């Protein structure tokens, strides 16, 4: 098994140290994105040729420490300790050496080969810093390589040194932090108890059992030690804490910080100027007590405005493209089942969804801009008081904001919340942050019933309604579950995002969206087409399928199903066709548009022309719908069960099908109640 190719190197580092851009430069597009088993901490891996070997690089989640208090830290620690990792690159923000070497000290302590990437070295030097790199290497006992992650400088050097370190060709097992006399005694005493039973580094195991007791041993090694062992170790800890007058955590943390700041002090020939004053100046305005909130709201408003106005033109172009393709296909393919499938099923269905790609891309462009500049953390800072009132956390706002793009990454983003309670509440209100997939449905319906000039306002009111609803639900849920977790977070320095990282981010989203269109939505479109075509169609000559009248449609599978659930929707005034559309919307919200397109196109006299303006006309002409019902329908679509992809991710994140079941029942009943109340109230008033 021990091929030259089997070298795996992990990248660790603090959040905001430029690790991701460094990683992107190393692996380029050759990365595989997945999840760590059991938890949805994103796991990135990519293999690349370095010198004479193929090396796999693993991007660990950004952490400040390796304590077992958060999922990220837990995942990073397990990965670092796993046998397959032969070396760890610790990415360090050179402008904040002490803080970053603190994490390095913990990774060095695992006894594995470590390479330090002195990242952002340009920023450090430009602000007047001078660092004695050979001396830093000598003090820490590991190779140190200066890098500039966002411009790819020093990467080749780093990779080649890492390979040598992994193979043991250069010394890379670092010098360990030493603690107080009493602490060292305690470490030795614990070492005597555990003997050679730990599969991990001896000293590292002793220190961690002292720090976290049995809770550290959530790894596979918990059962290696007996109750008696833990009892004796607890005794050692108690004696030590009594002797030192402080807890072991304090002893170890100060020891590690002492190690980090000692190394930094010895090697910094010239301190760079403290914290770029630009960040201070921007913060003086952006997080200002009086200006902060108005600026935040202005940014949010401009973001949505730009998403829709800039997106309008390309959306139209794509619409025309699909319209023409449909027209062309309907002429080339001989009339019949195949023609109907391609034109009414596939082109109308997939096209209706792909059309909105520009809006989605713009939204993710702005979100990644907010993330990469460092403003996202400020948004959390500004919103924390409000969020706290709702029983949430300032950080909850970030996943909720991402929820405007797509609920799936938003639910995954809740992992930045440390407390499970706040995480669960956030997950359960995120679906009300109207996602990008619902947008095409609003555009269709609002355009049809409120005209071009009012459509924007109507859509904005839906977003607002969703936000208000999420706040109300959060408040109710937080009453039911008391206690809140602390808010402590770093506000990273402002940085100008590199086009590369923003483009990569958008590309990932674009690809995800198109892949969804090509798989789930394609399948759903074909399925819906099948449901609205059979069995009624089979009774006739194949060529006559186009002449499916609404009466015929009622006898199809879709019609029967729609009829089945019609009683539930009757009080809202929705007929079976809406029922079918809502049901298929469960696959993905955009599918509602394509289903309506397919149903109405099939039911219509002349097929093949299923672009939006036509569909809007047909919907407007439908006597069973009016503006009030259309708005009620949009409210229903806003609130009711999130798509299947969301439920999948919810099952993993929340941990169990019962949460999925709860989500389905609660969102759908809420949608019914809200929609019903709105329609009845509006009809009463009008």
């Amino acid at each position, binding site marked *: 098994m021990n091929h030259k190719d089997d070298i795996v190197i992990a990248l660790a580092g603090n959040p905001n140290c430029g690790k991701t851009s460094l990683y992107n430069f190393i692996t380029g597009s050759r990365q595989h994105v997945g999840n760590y088993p059991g938890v949805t901490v994103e796991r990135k891996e990519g293999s690349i040729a370095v010198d004479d070997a193929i090396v796999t690089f693993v991007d660990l989640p950004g952490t400040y420490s390796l304590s077992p208090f958060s999922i990220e830290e837990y995942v990073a620690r397990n990965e670092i300790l796993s046998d397959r990792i032969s070396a760890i690159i610790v990415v360090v923000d050179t402008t904040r050496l002490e803080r970053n070497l603190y994490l390095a000290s913990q990774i060095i302590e695992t006894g594995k080969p470590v390479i330090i990437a002195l990242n952002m070295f340009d920023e450090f030097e430009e602000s007047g810093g001078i660092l004695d790199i050979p001396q830093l290497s000598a003090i820490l006992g590991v190779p140190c390589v200066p890098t500039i992650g966002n411009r790819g400088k020093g990467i080749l050097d780093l990779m080649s040194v890492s390979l040598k370190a992994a193979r043991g060709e250069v010394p890379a097992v670092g010098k360990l932090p030493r603690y107080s006399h009493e602490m060292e005694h305690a470490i030795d005493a614990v070492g005597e108890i555990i003997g050679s039973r730990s599969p991990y580094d001896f000293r590292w195991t002793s220190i961690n059992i002292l720090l976290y007791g049995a809770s550290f041993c959530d790894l596979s090694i918990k059962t290696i030690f007996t109750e008696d062992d833990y009892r004796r170790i607890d005794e050692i800890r108690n004696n030590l804490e009594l002797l030192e007058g402080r*807890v072991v*955590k*304090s002893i170890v943390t100060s020891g590690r910080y002492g190690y980090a700041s000692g190394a930094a002090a010895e090697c910094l020939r010239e301190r760079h100027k403290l*914290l770029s004053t630009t960040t201070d100046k921007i913060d003086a305005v952006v997080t200002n*007590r009086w200006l902060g909130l108005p600026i935040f709201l202005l940014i949010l408003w401009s973001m949505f405005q730009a998403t829709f106005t800039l997106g309008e033109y390309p959306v139209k172009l794509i619409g025309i493209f699909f319209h023409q393709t449909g027209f062309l296909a309907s002429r080339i393919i001989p009339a019949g089942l195949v023609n109907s499938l391609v034109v009414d099923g596939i082109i109308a269905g997939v096209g209706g969804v792909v059309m909105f790609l520009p809006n989605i891309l713009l939204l993710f462009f702005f979100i990644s801009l907010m993330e990469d500049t460092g403003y996202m953390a400020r948004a959390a800072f500004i919103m924390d008081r409000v969020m706290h009132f709702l029983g949430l956390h300032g950080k909850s706002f970030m996943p909720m904001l991402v929820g405007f793009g797509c609920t799936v990454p938003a639910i995954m983003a809740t992992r930045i919340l440390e407390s499970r309670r706040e995480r669960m509440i956030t997950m359960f209100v995120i679906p009300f942050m109207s996602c990008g997939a619902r947008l095409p449905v609003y555009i269709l319906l609002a355009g049809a019933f409120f005209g071009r000039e009012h459509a924007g306002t109507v859509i904005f009111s839906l977003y607002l309604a969703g936000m208000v609803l999420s706040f109300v639900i959060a408040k109710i849920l937080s009453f039911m579950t008391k206690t809140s977790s602390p808010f402590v*977070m770093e506000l990273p320095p402002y940085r100008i995002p590199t086009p590369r990282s923003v483009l990569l981010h958008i590309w990932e989203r674009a690809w995800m969206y198109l892949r969804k269109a090509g798989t789930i939505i394609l399948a759903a479109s074909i399925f819906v087409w099948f449901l609205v075509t059979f069995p009624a169609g089979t009774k006739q000559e194949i060529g006559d399928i186009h002449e499916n009248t609404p009466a015929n449609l009622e006898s199809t599978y879709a019609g029967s199903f729609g009829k089945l659930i019609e009683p539930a929707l009757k009080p809202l005034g929705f007929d079976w066709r809406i029922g079918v559309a809502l049901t298929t919307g469960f696959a993905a919200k955009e599918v509602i548009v394509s289903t309506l397109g397919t149903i109405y196109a099939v039911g219509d006299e002349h097929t093949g022309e299923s672009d939006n303006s036509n569909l809007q006309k047909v919907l407007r002409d439908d006597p069973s719908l009016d503006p009030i019902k259309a708005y009620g329908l949009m409210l229903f679509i806003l609130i009711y069960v999130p798509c299947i992809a969301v439920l999948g991710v919810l099952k993993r994140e929340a941990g169990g099908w019962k949460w999925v079941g709860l989500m389905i029942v609660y969102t759908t009943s809420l949608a019914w109640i809200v929609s019903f109340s709105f329609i009845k109230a509006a009809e009463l008033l009008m």
Partner: protein
Amino acid sequence: MFRHDHMAVRHATTIDDLRPGEKGVIVQVMADDGIKQRLMDLGLIEGTEIEMIRHAPFGDPIQIKALNTHIALRRREARMIVIDAAGEEHSESQGRYRHRFGRKSQLR
């Protein structure tokens, strides 16, 4: 180092008592396990110098600066961090700030 006993701690100055622009040195972090670890991992340990920067729009949380990094924390957490307030006379210019660091590394 000078250590507070718990009686004294009750009346001690905490980060929450600082006004924007004021500085202090952390004496003790009195928090529960998880949060204490988080605060310490961010560099808020005994001996760290911190500066109060500002309050958020609704007065809470607050923004502080420590080890060349901006950190946001709620006032509830800020009250858990006992400091030795350096007072206004210590809110020094950049030049003196750098000098202090220079002296520190010479001492080593």
